[in-house]
């Protein structure tokens, strides 16, 4: 009876504290549901199919993405399509195919590309324009698609694959989740206008066909190959594999395609790759991390969990989030302290003070967590600010853990806030859901010197909670320094290596003059100093490593652009890098224009 009254008391205490999420008034820059046009002469779904061909050789993935547009209406249209790519994608080529003619796109300064496109549109020429809206969100425009026309746009990009715990993962994102923004429509600037892209209703399948084929050539024998996100067929030989999407997944373009594989003996491909270019030479250093050693005693810590309970988390994502946070809370030790902040349009905390992780407090937290349903806006910045202002347990280092799908449009502002408060806490970000905004999750972790984690289903949640606890207990390598001895390296990215928590290799890009000398990496592990020497020789130079130039430039742009301060003047430098290395950036776009006039311009 006593136990029962405790439970009832707990429920009564918790339920009235449900956050007072503010209802959004006025018309804000938010997406809307798609309502099919009444005009039967217009094709509302011009994207016929999207398909990808992925070639993975060693640690580098080369992806060819093809979008096919077809106008099945009776009027000439301009099609606009918003789509995602990986956060580390270096997009270096685009071409357009009309009938048998192929037009190579040019990289231009963003404003110039837009002018060229608009002029072609006015002139009645078929044209396509690819613009970056976010480092992982792009917009394709195709003008003057005449009734019956079929136009193919092909985009080439490359990515580096970095294994974690010996598992390689390639992610092909398929759809952009709806982003919450509280900005008024009239105040919106160009980079945010895509947020208004309409969405189909829940349960409606993607109206276009989706297909993907991946080919693996690893050099080292493969151990396992699997795709947790979609049904596929896998043909595996010694160090090669070919993966095809199952026919029933042709409408599977509403969740990230995730391909994972391991090499025999859980090996990872590490070492030095060199590319001798015509004007510049590039290198990539991948260094296997030291083995994890658990310290005998870990000091107590204070955890603050920030849990996204907004509308987009309603249902499955919030259930995954609850399972994850519950797992972490259950693993806390009595000497640890913790608190939880729930947010949507407003926010609410579990306690005004950090609570010791007693069984009673953990239970109270879990009951409160279970009561969350999801609804309202995603005001992540005030939530982060409030979390940072919460009373702190003196003497304990603070760890802030955010769990969200990341469907917000204030990524850079969040990075800034975290960077400015680094002395107050370490930040770890969990991305939850089938198509997480990885730009936000990875950026938050990088700005907060923590690690990014993505959990796509409830089954992974308990494993992720365990892994997280392990990372926090014992960082693998800290105070990392790299020295080049006799190896004339320059323009090294990143200039400072962050502490390494997860079991993933150290990655360093750069340019070099002569392929000789050595690279020395030093750091500290829990039990002692760490030192690794990597010899450099001309024998390692390989013209097949041409992708290194794009990856280096993408890395530098990422640092300047993605993680640069809001309002910082990096435009000139990023533009120069984009034009020089033929790369898509925030300030450079690909534009392709047909030379033939096929359509009389519409006059209003």
């Amino acid at each position: 009876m006593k136990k029962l009254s405790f439970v009832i008391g707990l429920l009564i205490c918790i339920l009235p504290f449900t956050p007072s999420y503010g209802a959004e008034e006025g018309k804000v820059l938010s997406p809307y549901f798609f309502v099919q046009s009444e005009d039967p002469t217009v094709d509302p779904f011009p994207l016929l199919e999207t398909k990808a061909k992925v070639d993975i050789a060693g640690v580098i993935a080369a992806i060819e993405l093809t979008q096919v547009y077809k106008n099945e209406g009776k009027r000439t249209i301009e099609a606009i399509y918003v789509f995602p790519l990986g956060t580390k994608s270096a997009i270096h080529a685009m071409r357009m195919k009309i009938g048998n003619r192929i037009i190579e796109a040019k990289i231009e300064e963003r404003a110039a590309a837009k002018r060229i496109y608009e002029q072609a549109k006015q002139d009645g020429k078929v044209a396509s324009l690819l613009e970056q809206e976010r480092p992982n969100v792009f917009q394709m425009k195709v003008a003057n698609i005449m009734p019956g026309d079929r136009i193919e746009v092909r985009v080439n990009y490359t990515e580096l694959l970095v294994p974690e715990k010996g598992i390689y993962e390639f992610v092909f994102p398929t759809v952009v989740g709806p982003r919450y923004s509280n900005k008024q429509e009239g105040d919106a600037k160009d980079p945010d206008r895509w947020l208004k892209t309409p969405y189909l209703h829940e349960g409606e399948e993607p109206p276009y066909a989706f297909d993907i084929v991946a080919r693996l050539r690893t050099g080292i024998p493969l151990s396992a190959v699997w795709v947790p996100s979609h049904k596929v067929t896998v043909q595996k030989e010694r160090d090669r594999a070919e993966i095809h999407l199952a026919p029933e997944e042709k409408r599977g373009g509403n969740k990230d395609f995730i391909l994972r594989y391991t090499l025999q003996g859980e090996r990872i491909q590490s070492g030095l790759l060199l590319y001798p270019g015509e004007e510049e030479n590039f290198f990539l250093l991948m260094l296997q991390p030291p083995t994890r050693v658990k310290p005998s005693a870990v000091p107590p810590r204070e955890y603050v969990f920030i849990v996204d309970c907004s509308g987009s988390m309603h249902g499955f994502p919030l259930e995954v989030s609850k399972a994850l946070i519950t797992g972490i809370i259950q693993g806390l030790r009595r000497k640890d302290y913790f608190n939880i902040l729930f947010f949507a349009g407003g926010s609410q905390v579990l306690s005004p003070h950090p609570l010791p992780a007693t069984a009673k407090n953990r239970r109270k937290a879990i009951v409160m967590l279970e009561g969350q349903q999801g609804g309202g806006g995603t005001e992540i910045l005030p939530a982060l600010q409030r979390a940072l202002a919460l009373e702190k347990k003196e003497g304990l280092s603070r760890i802030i853990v955010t769990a969200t799908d990341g469907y917000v449009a204030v990524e850079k502002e969040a990075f800034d806030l975290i960077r400015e408060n680094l002395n107050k806490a370490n930040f770890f970000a969990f991305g939850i859901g089938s198509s997480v905004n990885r730009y936000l999750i990875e950026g938050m972790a990088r700005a907060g010197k923590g690690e990014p984690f993505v959990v796509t289903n409830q089954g992974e949640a308990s494993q992720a909670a365990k892994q997280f606890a392990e990372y926090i207990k014992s960082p693998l390598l800290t105070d990392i320094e790299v020295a080049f001895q006799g190896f004339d390296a320059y323009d090294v990215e990143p200039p400072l290596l962050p502490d390494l928590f997860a079991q993933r290799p150290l990655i360093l890009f750069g340019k070099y003059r002569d392929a000789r000398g050595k690279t020395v990496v030093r750091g500290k592990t829990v039990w002692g100093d760490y030192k690794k020497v990597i010899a450099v020789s001309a024998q390692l130079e390989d013209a097949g490593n041409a992708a290194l130039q794009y990856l280096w430039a993408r890395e530098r742009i990422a640092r300047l652009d993605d993680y640069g301060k809001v309002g910082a003047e990096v435009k000139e430098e990023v533009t120069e890098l984009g034009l020089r290395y033929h790369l898509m950036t925030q300030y450079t776009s690909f534009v392709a224009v047909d030379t033939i006039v096929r359509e009389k311009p519409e006059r209003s």
Partner: protein
Amino acid sequence: MTVKQPLPLPEGVSDYAVGGETRFQLAAPMSSLVKGRVMKEAADYSASEEKSVPPQIYLMGGKLPSGMTMGEAEQALSPVKGELEQLFQQWGLTKTIVLLTVEQGKVRSIQVKSYQGKGYKKEALEQVFRKITFSPSVKGTIELELVYL
């Protein structure tokens, strides 16, 4: 005519994400399944689970000679942890920062830089810290921040 290709909602994301419900609903009553689980968990609660874990000494930080790690310091401390815990409990100490002067890996003298608690006896502390041995190459001053939680 411009057509914005509508996007499907990512799998698992509900209409609430794009204004399917314009006003936030207060956390609805828990589903019977969740409620049942919570009730069971809470029913499992008993005072016995709250039995206290005895306080321990933790090495929270400090300043070490070049080349030495916190892991090594922690390892060196571990043989005397029990004795230190007894002393901290006896004196009501919750935190202290000590400076150890070390030569050839052996503690020659100690100094208490600061402490939180009722007080301490330097001789007793010195007796315990002198039992610590570091690697023979360690020399100089080691600052250790210890908490008793």
